[in-house]
């Protein structure tokens, strides 16, 4: 088989020949100029269709808003910036293909933006092979768990493991000791379970039941009797279009009578209007939010500016359509990731693909990210070894149909020992 591999140089030489002939037609001169003044092209892997489309729309808007700010501030290294969006259909196989297209065909310097874990895991190997930085906005634990590669980073949003660890003490202290977890039979559901159970035990609580629901399910009531009667807290984290049904049915099941405390990850209701019929019962329950959907009384100027730029009102809905609720809890990561890219590119005086490795190293070298216009969700700490950022988490309570923050975790609360040191891996 080494013979087959021996064909590689010849393939290069053929391509080289093509490049040479392209030079005669003037194509190559354009490439050469591209190095100096032409826009920097960034690729965005977008869930425009498929199950992630509700997120994708807001990820795109956030990216465009951040881009406007970047370009208004002179671009990066004096060059204007362009973002090319490529739909991945929220599908891992197409995700890898989208990376190919953005990098090989469109000439993007790097790729960022995906949310869904399976797209990230399915695409990361390709990014590694192409040796192109891949900055994900996914909150999955995949990056920090060490299964990916040196080129994949998550500098915009805390991973689920850290989120869960940071929440557990508050849940145990404030809501109750006996918790029933309801989560989808999905890898991130398991991430919640695997990390929350020990964290709860450490905080003096106990997970009394774990109910993993198949993601194809559209009706949930029949599983609710599996919730033990002595449960103090129901911990739910669901995704997909059926989550609204889930919450409504939970409400019908318990009604106005006595019910356990309810703590959910807002993933269950991201992009869903809290004023939707059937959700009244959520009054008084608690949610984790990466970033607060409703404008909080103590919101910083940066937060306000960010929200205005993206185009969301005080209720976290589109300023042009109050029924169109944004994915506020997650989409800040796109904004912040673009500014991490900008900072890293400026650090290494990024010129072109040759500087990709330096770009990754520059991100790895980052540590403290201060609360700022670039980081409106709050200050963060980046761990270069695990390629993962850690920030504050918010717990909000539903009061009068809006979510008010009642607790904000310290970053250190979400610490856990490194599971990988990517900096020791080769590029």
């Amino acid at each position, binding site marked *: 088989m080494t013979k087959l591999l021996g064909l590689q140089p010849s393939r290069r030489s053929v391509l080289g020949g093509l490049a040479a002939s392209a030079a005669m037609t003037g194509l190559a001169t354009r490439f050469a100029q591209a190095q100096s003044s032409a826009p920097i092209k960034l690729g965005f892997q977008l869930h425009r269709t498929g199950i992630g489309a509700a997120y994708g729309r807001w990820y795109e808007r956030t990216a465009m808003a951040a881009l406007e700010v970047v370009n208004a501030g002179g671009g990066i290294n004096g060059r204007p910036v362009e973002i090319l969006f490529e739909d991945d259909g929220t599908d891992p196989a197409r995700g890898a293909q989208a990376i190919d297209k953005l990098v090989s065909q469109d000439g993007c310097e790097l790729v960022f933006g995906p949310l869904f874990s399976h797209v990230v895991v399915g695409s990361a190997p390709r990014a590694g092979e192409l040796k192109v930085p891949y900055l994900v906005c996914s909150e999955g634990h995949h990056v920090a768990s060490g299964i990916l590669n040196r080129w994949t980073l998550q500098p915009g949003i805390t991973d689920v493991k850290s989120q869960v660890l940071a929440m557990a003490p508050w849940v145990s202290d404030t809501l109750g000791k006996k918790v029933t977890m309801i989560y989808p039979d999905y890898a991130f559901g398991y991430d919640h379970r695997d990390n929350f159970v020990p964290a709860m035990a450490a905080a003096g609580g106990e997970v009394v039941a774990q109910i*993993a629901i198949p993601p194809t399910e559209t009706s949930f009531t029949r599983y609710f009797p599996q919730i033990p009667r002595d449960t103090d807290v129901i911990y739910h984290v669901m995704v997909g279009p059926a989550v609204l049904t889930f919450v409504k049915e939970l409400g019908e099941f318990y009604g106005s009578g006595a019910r356990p405390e309810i703590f959910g990850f807002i993933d269950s209701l991201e992009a869903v209007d809290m004023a939707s019929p059937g959700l009244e019962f959520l009054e008084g329950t608690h949610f984790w939010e990466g970033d607060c959907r409703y404008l909080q009384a103590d919101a910083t100027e940066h937060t306000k500016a960010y929200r205005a730029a993206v185009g969301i009102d005080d209720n976290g809905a589109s300023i042009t359509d109050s029924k169109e609720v944004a994915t506020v809890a997650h989409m800040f990561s796109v904004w912040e990731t673009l500014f991490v890219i900008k900072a890293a590119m400026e650090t290494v005086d990024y010129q072109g693909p040759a500087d990709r490795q330096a770009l990754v190293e520059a991100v790895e070298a980052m540590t403290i990210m201060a609360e700022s216009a670039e980081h409106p969700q709050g200050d963060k700490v980046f761990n270069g070894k695990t390629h993962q950022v850690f920030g504050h988490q918010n717990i909000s309570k539903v009061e009068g149909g809006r979510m008010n923050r009642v607790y904000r975790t310290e970053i250190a609360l979400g610490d856990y020992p490194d599971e990988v040191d990517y900096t020791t891996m080769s590029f």
Partner: protein
Amino acid sequence: MSFGPYLLLAVLEGLVSAAVLALTAVGLGLVFGVMRVVNVAHGAFFMLGAVIAWMVADALPGPPALGFAAALVVAPLAVAALAAAVDFGVLKRLGYDPDATIVATIGVLYIVEQAALSLFGPDARPVQAPFNLRLQLPWFGYSGYKLAVVAAAVVVLLAVWLVLSRSRAGLVMRATQIDGETARAFGIDTDRVYAGVFALGAGLAALAAVLVVPIQQAHYLMGGDPLLLSFIVVIIGGLGSLRGTVIAALLIGVSEGVVSVFFSPTLAKILATLLVALVLVFRPQGLFGRRAA
């Protein structure tokens, strides 16, 4: 929760899903029975019904019951009209060839889904139930509207049965189902029958969706599950057997509910799926279909 009430809840849930299943499946079964067309777009018509219901309810001010009632009329008619157009523009030209219609309806499925995504967006949108009644049992609460859906399903299915068995339209349909050529020889315009059946099937899917949407929310990808389940119900029930469709829906709905009492959710789903598959394997003609002699 003790076992008795648990089982009661499971059975209630099973009844509701059986009602939804039967409603969704009956239109598919009709199309399949009369036209021998596997309508892959059936789930898309269902979804379209839900989406239109949301649009109507959203556009109409006033009490939720009003918007709901309007949706109950508008959605099935609109979807039926679209289906008739599909029949006329595509299926008829294909001569209702089984393989070709599968491909064509997959195409229609994509077109409708994309249209919904483009015009309606990717969000799950709830429609308010026409009334808000919650039954508080000693052990758990239950949605009154869900029980109303069961009642509505019974009414709709009875109506379909009456139309099929007692009306001239039903007679014409059955004649076409049994032997299209002979029907044509007797002066039945089978083209019109086919268009009518296809529209009726789609309209029934939309009607089911309007009834379901206060329970399940409108979403542009919501059609997949009903499509699969409808097929299963129609096949298990035996082709062209309304009674079989209803009983199969009950069997599947209630067995899923009851199996879920004894196993963890995903395992229950796996077992219920295998159970139904095995029923089909060992009764390939369906529970109520007749094996060809």
